[in-house]
């Protein structure tokens, strides 16, 4: 067995495209062939945002279909990827947000800030009706503060475990109390008579804390930059930063004022980003988007993403979806191969005529094991069993099931 690099220039372009866009279109790969890294990365970061607005529909189904269409349109693929990443790091569940129109509102909020500033994004989340509803903010009053929102903001979305005390949680819960989410008026607001009015002591400072000042204080903490920065790092490189490297990244990003673009630029130009072609599993939704990209499936078929274990806006819990090898479980692989065998390639452009080379190009597979290529070639020996149209179909299935296609 040997790894084959079919085309080194396209292999590099495919790596960048696969990791930075939700839809790694072959045409995007072609655009980047021969372009140096700095120029290619700047091109990604400087592309104009897609400012199309998601429908704030009372059936989130149409909102999510709209988003999948946007991902498919690929106007700004990095914006879509960052929207996806922020959603997975700071998730809400569409059936737990009261009015499902809040899904569209949150999606618009994230998409417009996806490449902006993390502090700004976090402030917007902390006032976002969907998230407030999802984290039970409404049931937190001065009299009976509910710690859910305060705890999750600290544990999951900002500083991370180990950087706050239980007393900080209690005090922050008081400071964050009083939220109301108005489904009909489609807004979230503080109702003064339910909010705690006195001073609280948070991170050693006693004053009149409220939601924005709590979020600000958390974003000032170096642990936030290290925590969130390293999660973004993992998403793009498949590597977990630890110890000094993690702290250093945090301090550096803090110095960049938590602006998101410089962080991405640093990651995309780091040697670690380019070192290995396949570093982490594609999650369920990423795999769905990759298949959608190759086969141009109708984006309303997003039930397939659910079957693959990751429907956006349906996280298993507030911690989001599991990361890492979990996506390589037997369950996951069976679902993926099952999906491959459920697709009728007659409906796919070139589904019954594509050659091995064309299929590998369409799949962005410029680096792969020679066994995969020879397995695809071997299908031609079985025309007797499966007819003339059989081998191409099986080749597609092999290409989109092979290890390389499961990975980022």
């Amino acid at each position: 067995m040997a790894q084959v690099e079919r085309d080194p220039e396209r292999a590099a372009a495919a790596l960048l495209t696969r990791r930075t866009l939700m839809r790694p279109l072959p045409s995007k790969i072609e655009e980047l062939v021969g372009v140096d890294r700095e120029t290619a990365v700047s091109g990604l970061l400087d592309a104009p945002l897609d400012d199309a607005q998601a429908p704030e529909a009372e059936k989130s189904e149409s909102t999510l279909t709209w988003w999948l269409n946007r991902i498919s349109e690929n106007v700004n693929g990095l914006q879509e990827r960052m929207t996806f990443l922020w959603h997975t790091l700071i998730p809400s569940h569409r059936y737990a947000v009261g009015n499902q129109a809040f899904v569209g509102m949150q999606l618009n909020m994230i998409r417009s800030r996806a490449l902006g500033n993390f502090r700004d994004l976090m402030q917007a989340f902390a006032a976002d009706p969907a998230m407030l509803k999802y984290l039970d903010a409404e049931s937190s009053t001065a009299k009976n503060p509910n710690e859910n929102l305060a705890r999750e903001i600290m544990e999951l979305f900002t500083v991370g475990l180990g950087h706050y005390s239980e007393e900080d949680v209690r005090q922050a819960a008081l400071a964050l109390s009083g939220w109301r989410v108005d489904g009909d008026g489609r807004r979230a607001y503080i109702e003064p008579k339910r909010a705690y009015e006195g001073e609280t002591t948070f991170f050693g400072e006693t004053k009149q804390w409220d939601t924005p000042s709590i979020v600000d204080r958390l974003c000032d903490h170096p642990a936030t930059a290290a925590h969130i920065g390293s999660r973004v790092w993992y998403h793009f490189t498949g590597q977990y930063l630890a110890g000094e490297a993690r702290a250093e990244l945090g301090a550096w990003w803090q110095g960049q004022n938590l602006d998101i673009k410089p962080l991405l630029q640093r990651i995309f130009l780091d040697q670690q980003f380019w070192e290995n072609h396949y570093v982490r599993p594609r999650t369920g939704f990423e795999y769905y988007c990759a298949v959608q990209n190759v086969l141009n499936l109708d984006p309303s078929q997003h039930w397939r993403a659910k079957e693959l274990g990751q429907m956006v806006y349906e996280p298993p819990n507030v911690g989001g979806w599991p990361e890492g090898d979990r996506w390589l479980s037997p369950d996951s692989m069976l679902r993926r191969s099952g999906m491959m065998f459920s697709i009728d390639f007659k409906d796919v452009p070139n589904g019954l005529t594509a050659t091995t080379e064309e299929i590998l190009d369409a799949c962005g597979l410029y680096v792969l094991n020679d066994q995969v290529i020879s397995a695809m070639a071997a299908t031609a020996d079985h025309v007797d069993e499966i007819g003339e149209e059989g081998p191409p179909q099986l080749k597609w299935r092999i290409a989109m099931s092979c290890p390389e296609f499961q990975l980022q």
Partner: protein
Amino acid sequence: MTGSDYQDFDYGEQPHQPPSVGPDGAPVDGAGDAPSTTDDVITRRRLLQGMGAAGAVGAGAWWQLRGGNQPQSAVASKRVDTSVLEVGANNGGQTETLAAGSVDDLLSQFGVADNVLLTPAPVDQRVLVLIELEGGNDGLSTVVPYSAGAYYDRRPNLSIAPESVIPIDSEVGLNPQLARLSQRQVAVVEGVGPVNGNLSHFEMVERWDYGSTEGGNASRAGFLARVVDRIDSGSPVTGLSVAGHTPRFTNASASTLSIENLNALKVLTNNDWIYPIYRQSLTSVSGGPVANTLAGTWNQLFSMGRSLAGDIERYDGDSPIVKNGGGLGRQLAMAAALIKADLGIRVVHARMGGFDTHDGHNGRHERLMGQLDGAVDAFLQIIADAGLADRVLVATTSEFGRRVSENSSGLDHGAASTMLLFGPVVPGRLGDPSPVSNLDNRGNLKTTIGFDRYLASLAQEWLGVDAGAVLDSAPAPISILA
């Protein structure tokens, strides 16, 4: 058919014949004949030992091996001392193929294993099979309080006549449809129900799913997820759902597999040309730890597919488990095939719907019990034939029981119900009966064993997982094992 059709099973010491029933559920030719010579000798010896210990021989269902004619006390935590086991008297003609005095006939009633009572395998080999009876199973129609006047008073139309039940003791008996299972080692756990519950399916199912007495679980792991994570040994599949997606495994770190149809594996089991090609392409490694993990996963799946190939065919067609057990039978056939494939499966979740019998209770519940009987009995037979009987415990769950008083033709949502356990359990009545004469203010049976205690028993007693580590309420388990 009566339970005696399954008389000659053996709890797992040597390979055994497949179930001796034909496609229609009737015994096939020769099924009722005397056991083979080897079995004969062994079983005669066992039987005679049993006779010596008991000093009297009768016939009856399993629980009568314990306690003779004494009505079973309903106190929890009772353990059986096998040295004082005795064979009970015939229980009023329920299993009447027996002619007293004939050893061969006695054998046909007691063709069972070594120490008479099936005892559990070492804890790290045990498998828990949970069957969720979805919709709220009526405990009183499952284990009938046939001596309670209040039961007949409140259910003029929907009760089961005393002469129909399969008696467990002088107070309660099994639903007549559970005839096959009555011949196996079975325990009934009475009074299991919600803690501070309400009557919502959704909320009560969620509490069972998450093992939480309080509800509100959006950010938590499923109960079975916590269990499999405690016993995870890195095997290909630790938790298996044959019921499709289940929140019970939500957020497990251990490997869990959810599969609704063994045919999904067919692509992996295909023996013709596609298999080597597909396998070759999927198990190749391009280097790096992630690719290695992935190749390992595919290799496991292919091995699994290979070792399952025979079973996929066998349970596809007219096998008794599918024929008699319906949808649950198909699920349990898959579970049996996967358990036998030695993948490291320790927890299985299966599900049977249809228990929400607001109307037409009699006919519907009767059919459901018949399917449960067919499915679980055939499953246990497959397991026993594979020599795994001492490793597998089947336990039912249901979100709640049903109202004691009937509406016109059905029963509304209730509270406590009765759960069933099959396998190496203390046979007979466990739990704490909730009397029909002492109901809560909605007219429902009061919970005497919180569902969390029941789950605690399955986790701690059977799987050796500390209940406090997987259930926030840290309930005290009840003893269930033989």
